[in-house]
């Protein structure tokens, strides 16, 4: 527990927050609560205003990338999906230029974006991006083996891949359990990435 706390505190420092937690915390909560397109668009606008007012707010850049990826998954419009993923890539590129960001969270988001790109056209993009997706999650986990988002997303992807090959990913239940415990231990009051619990529910439904 102590190590998780100190890790999350480290994250806070690394994201170099300059705006007070009081202002930004409700936006993060809105991100975590968002479910449908209109929710995500509202919170995207909020994040964009924060970023324009405070360009050095790397957490806003990080969350904008995340919200754009989520929008690409929930919006039905194919053209918009592509635009949101392009925007997410721009924000990820910005993040990669910054020092002191949490690289594990960065690579997790990168993997999720590629996964969303793959979801656009699995037949074409599956073979194209699967190697990069596996690599992005593996890198995220090499940096921080206790990143719950990387654990659950990597587990889901491995499970899907092995299913496609008519095999079984034996580590799937164990990964779900580990991610679930790590999510439960997250301190949602801290201004750090906390999204991803819903992926555990999704993974449980596929078990």
């Amino acid at each position, binding site marked *: 527990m102590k190590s998780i706390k100190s890790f999350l505190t480290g994250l806070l420092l690394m994201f170099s927050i300059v705006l007070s937690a009081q202002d930004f915390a409700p936006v993060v909560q809105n991100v975590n609560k968002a479910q449908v397109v209109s929710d995500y668009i509202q919170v995207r606008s909020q994040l964009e205003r924060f970023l324009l007012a405070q360009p050095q707010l790397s957490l806003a850049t990080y969350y904008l990338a995340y919200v754009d990826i989520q929008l690409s998954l929930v919006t039905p419009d194919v053209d918009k999906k592509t635009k949101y993923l392009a925007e997410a890539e721009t924000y990820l590129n910005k993040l990669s230029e910054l020092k002191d960001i949490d690289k594990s969270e960065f690579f997790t988001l990168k993997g999720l974006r590629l996964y969303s790109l793959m979801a656009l056209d699995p037949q074409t993009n599956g073979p194209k991006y699967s190697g990069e997706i596996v690599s992005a999650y593996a890198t995220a986990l090499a940096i921080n083996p206790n990143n719950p988002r990387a654990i659950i997303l990597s587990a889901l992807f491995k499970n899907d891949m092995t299913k496609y090959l008519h*095999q079984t990913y034996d580590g799937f239940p164990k990964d779900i359990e580990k991610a679930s415990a790590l999510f439960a231990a997250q301190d949602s009051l801290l201004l750090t990435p906390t999204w991803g619990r819903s992926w555990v529910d999704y993974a449980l439904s596929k078990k």
Partner: protein
Amino acid sequence: MLNEQSKPMPNANVFIKGTIDGASTDSLGNFSFTTNKQGEMTLCVRMLGYAEFNTKITDKNSTALVLNMKPDNITLDNVVVSAGNFRVKGNSQFGKMSAVDIVTTAGSTGDLYHSLRTLPGAQMVGESGKLFIRGGDSNESQTYIDEMHVLSPYTATGDNMPVRGRYSPFMFEGINFSTGASSSEYAQGLSSVLALNTKDVSPITKIGVNASSVGFSGGGTRAFEKGSVSLNLDYQNLKPYYSIVPNKYDWVKPYQLFSGSGQIRFNPNQTTVFKTFVGYDKTSFIQHIASSTNQPTRNLAFNDDNFYLNSTFQKTTESGYKIFAGGAFSLKNQHVDDALIATDSYRNKEWEIHLKTKVSKRFTDFLRLNVGLENFFRHNDIVYSYASTVHTDSINHSISALFASAIFNINSNLYAELSDRLEYTSINNMWRSNPRLSLTYNMNGVHFSGVVGQYTQLPENKYLLTKNDLRTENCMQYVGGIYYETKNKVYRAETYYKKYNDLVLQQSTSLTSEGYGYSKGLDLFFNDRALFKGFEYMLAYSFNLSKRKYQDYTELSTPQYATIHNATVSIKYNIPALKSILGVTNRFASGRPYHDPSKSGIMNSTTGFYNSVDLSLTYLVSQKVIIYTSATNLLGRQNTYNYNFINDTTNPDRYMKTPVTDPSKHFFYIGIFITLSGKTAYDVSNF
């Protein structure tokens, strides 16, 4: 909040600049919010796909605002549809094709050029393997890697044996195939340009090997934080294959190829890319050629060394200038013994240095400019010796060019491109201007595009070696097309007319530039990926009428390589239950003209039609092992491309006729691709 058509804009982000005070517009485009800011302030509106809108307001006049937004520059720049251009892989859905698509297309046998021959506009010239586009000869098609010219993109083979591309399709991130009306920055392509882009970033460290019925290869990539290094080695030897699948040739030493290539990519930041690619390959074979009427038996010994080096730099500055600079060096060195007759020797050494720089920038919503300079320095020398006779020829020359294009976004649905390419060729001391105009109009997702432009190209070296002052060949192109795309379907229809002038014409022993000709036709393309899950099919049809008076033609005739009708039906079926992708391609081409000396006129006869049903099966053994198999011409049709005639020694008025056919009726390929590194999957690419 209204868009450019004065319709309400929902979901726009409206706020006071410098604050977090704002709101999103509702479904009717309405918005309202309060702010504590006083006096003059900037109201800012942002929306994905639209230019940022700013207006000054004060706390006294901030009610009942009606605001209009316009599409942004990025959206304008993303217009990729223009007549003649077939973006095979890239951002556009129009005919996009990945390296995996290429190798799983039946009949492609894993070769980029074979795969492109299934697209409309390409003609079926089976004995060559090169690209013949819209009635143009193969030398009218040029290949560029990362915007730099490749002097010899095809492997070397003997007569009437189809060539393949030198480079693996897995190397390329973008494959843009222009079947006409290519951009002004690409030189020396009267008919078509294949612009290939290698990956800017290769983020995965990986290593792989493969073994196949023709050889084996291996290589890998080491990724770093700001770049990567890739290396690939390939060895092919057809001796084992020929011992199982014989062909009509008699080999003393069957075809052998050794090749190695490497690439270094360096990305110091998100806006800068340095790339260097180097490739070398060595081809050799000895073919036994039986004696003929007036020729003794000989052993044709063929050796070819090919080297290509390409280095490029790209940067986008903070002020929006996109800068490109590159250099490429191509070297081809061929040595053939017993080339035409026993004991003769032929050497051909050719090199080219290509230097290019360009800069582009969008200055306003209305205008984008692109300007560049390039130089080609070329050398070619040949030595032919027989007994004590030695014949040599050599040329050194250069091509210098200035190219510029202006793209006008007249409105969000209409754009025009005006360009010119001013070119000086030292060998014939000629200046040529190549003005071009293209217009594209988007009507509710249906794109209409038209291009008119001039294209020029120097005659082939084999003619320039004999006569230096031949004029630069030119072709005026008129292309018009309609394009429509949905999520899973692509429709294209294009018509064209090409008028050729100043082609090389050989009259008795003299060479002139008095040749001319035309080519006209219609290309149709349809791709459907939604008929049922995992199933994809593609239909391509080309109609072409082409006539020329060039080379040794004594009258205006259909060139020997041209076919009136070309059609391809290609299907792919992804069968998850079998972990397999099945591909079937049926290609058809009408008969080709050939010259029968026993009849009057030239190109006075026609071969039978061409047909080949090809099959491929890709089987995913595990995440890291793929087996790929393919077989061509399953129906076993004897396709004849031409006929050779030689005088009958018993009767000088008669000719003996031999058909030009494939070396064997079928080509079988089986390969196993193994990824050895730990993090990758489904990745047979070593680049």
